[in-house]
């Protein structure tokens, strides 16, 4: 244990660290900015070189990423568990399906309505959920996931029962020179960017700090004046809103909704994606989404007989190689690249990774991404 020693080192090298810190920080910011711009350019040019099916696959990734971001906000940043987000995904999907087919409401509005409805539903669900902690909350939400297909079938005069509802694919507006699949790609990508920006805003300030404080130590958070009950319910609402908007876009992309696609497995899949991507991270949602979209497809290609066994093996490998998710790994790589000039920072890193979790479930990934929201 060299912790006291390294802390003392930091003490004595105050001036040295001061000199390197801002440089390293601006370095890191530059890297991130360049990366972001390049990614955006690639993302907007990509569909021009893709087949329609490939464009659809990426659309699906974006949709999952929005859902996973909702889950990350809840689990990673606020420390509340949910194994029932498939229910909010379904609520969003059916909102759009019913509104566009029955009432001929333009799909753009239905995306907003789906978000607002899920915000309210999530908030209301979050209130009684305040009574549950950790695994008990996971079970309570899992009950929600289990009952979703049944509930959808029960209200069959609205939902079309087991038959589901067939939607029209959104047509390309303004005579743009792209096809319907490419349009959906751009639509979901734009919504994704907007929602990622909102999440980043939310998480990097007073509200985000309060959410994380509740995750780290609820009693201390309350002693600092954080209204835990309100923050937790609102976070649940925001989280459900993200997943609901994803559901709405999902209904538009697939152009079909049916109860059995919103089973408990969907909720578990979201959790898998969330953890693989990096649970206390915004950008991690994208990696997690790519994982749950592509790995099952490749697993199917490798073995038609046992694709889920392959999926399982890949999942275990991921967790073994990247215990803090893809985002956690990326964060460390970036840190190493940008901090090379100062040798002190390696001592500093040792301290930073020492365990002191209040909540073992959420804290280690949280630490890996703790610089993300800066």
């Amino acid at each position, binding site marked *: 244990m060299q912790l006291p020693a390294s802390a003392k080192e930091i003490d004595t090298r105050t001036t040295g660290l001061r000199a390197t810190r801002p440089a390293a920080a601006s370095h890191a910011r530059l890297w991130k900015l360049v990366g972001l711009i390049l990614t955006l350019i690639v993302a907007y040019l990509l569909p021009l070189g893709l087949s329609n099916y490939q464009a659809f696959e990426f659309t699906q990734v974006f949709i999952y990423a929005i859902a996973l971001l909702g889950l990350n906000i809840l689990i990673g940043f606020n420390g509340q568990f949910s194994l029932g987000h498939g229910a909010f995904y379904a609520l969003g999907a059916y909102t759009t399906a019913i509104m566009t087919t029955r009432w001929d409401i333009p799909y753009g509005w239905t995306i907003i309505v789906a978000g607002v409805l899920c915000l309210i539903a999530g908030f209301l669900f979050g209130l009684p959920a305040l009574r549950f902690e950790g695994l008990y909350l996971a079970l309570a939400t899992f009950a929600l996931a289990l009952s979703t297909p049944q509930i959808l079938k029960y209200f069959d005069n609205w939902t079309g029962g087991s038959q589901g509802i067939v939607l029209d694919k959104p047509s390309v507006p303004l005579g743009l020179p792209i096809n319907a699949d490419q349009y959906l790609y751009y639509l979901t990508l734009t919504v994704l960017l907007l929602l990622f920006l*909102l999440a980043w805003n939310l998480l990097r300030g007073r509200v985000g700090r309060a959410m994380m404080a509740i995750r780290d130590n609820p009693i201390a958070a309350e002693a600092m*004046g954080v209204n835990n009950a309100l923050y937790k319910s609102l976070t649940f609402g925001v989280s459900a809103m993200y997943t609901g908007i994803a559901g709405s876009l999902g209904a538009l992309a697939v152009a079909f909704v049916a109860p059995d696609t919103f089973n408990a497995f969907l909720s578990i899949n979201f959790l898998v994606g969330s953890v693989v991507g990096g649970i206390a991270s915004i950008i991690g949602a994208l990696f997690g989404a790519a994982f749950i979209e592509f790995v099952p497809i490749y697993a199917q290609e490798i073995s038609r007989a046992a694709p889920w066994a392959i999926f399982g093996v890949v999942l275990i490998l991921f967790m073994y190689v990247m215990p803090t998710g893809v985002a956690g790994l990326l964060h460390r790589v970036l840190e190493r690249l940008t901090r090379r000039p100062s040798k002190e920072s390696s001592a500093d890193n040792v301290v930073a990774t020492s365990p*002191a*979790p209040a909540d073992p479930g959420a*804290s280690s990934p949280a*630490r890996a991404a703790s610089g993300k929201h800066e």
Partner: protein
Amino acid sequence: MAANDVILAIRDLTVRFSGIVALDGVEFDVERGKIVGLIGPNGAGKTTLFNCLSRLYTPERGQILFEGHSLLTFPRHKIAKLGISRTFQNLALFPTMTVLENVMLGAHSRTKTGFFRHALRLPPVAKEERFIRDVAMESITLLGLEHLADHLASGLPYGTLKRIEFARALAGAPKLLLLDEPAGGLNHEEVFQLASLIQQVRERLKLTILLVEHHMNMVMQISDKVVVLDFGRKIAEGRPSEVQRDPEVIRAYLGDRI
């Protein structure tokens, strides 16, 4: 204006945990601008009293008046806003957040922008964020933690973590500061530094401090008044020199119940 001098009045405070009386009709005043030490053997009810002040426990009987308002009518998260900050006996930091972020949380009660304005990053947000950061940096500087601002609030020496908690409490601009065993786990020299730090902070920020502490030398050195609890009852109250000579107090500490 004698009545105004009392910032905190505790009256007939009684707390019972499944039959065990933790506090039994405790009464005392904390005068504005003073350092009041709360001492007593283990299990005397000191931390229980603190937890009543933070509204973690609701007393069975009695009243707590802070600047004339009954604290018992406020929920937990409103206590900080009233002007009462605290530190915890066994550290209650946010370990995955940086030292600066921890201390910024201290200023949460002094700001108010919520989810909507933050998501859209409306103008008041930037202003408040700047305010929070300034307040936190001031508090961090006061406690000599500047060089650790970007360090996580974990894996640091115990004394440093205690200072971070202290800084976080000060960022709330409290009128009354509750310190729960601030010297616990510190070595001799650190206790000495802490004592002068508490006095400096009191002078500089015009604070009132209620201090639970086992370290008798420190309590006697810096307190204006000492209240002694034993088995949930107040057995003495007065100036340090008086309390030290009180036969009741000597008996509680040295014990002749054998």
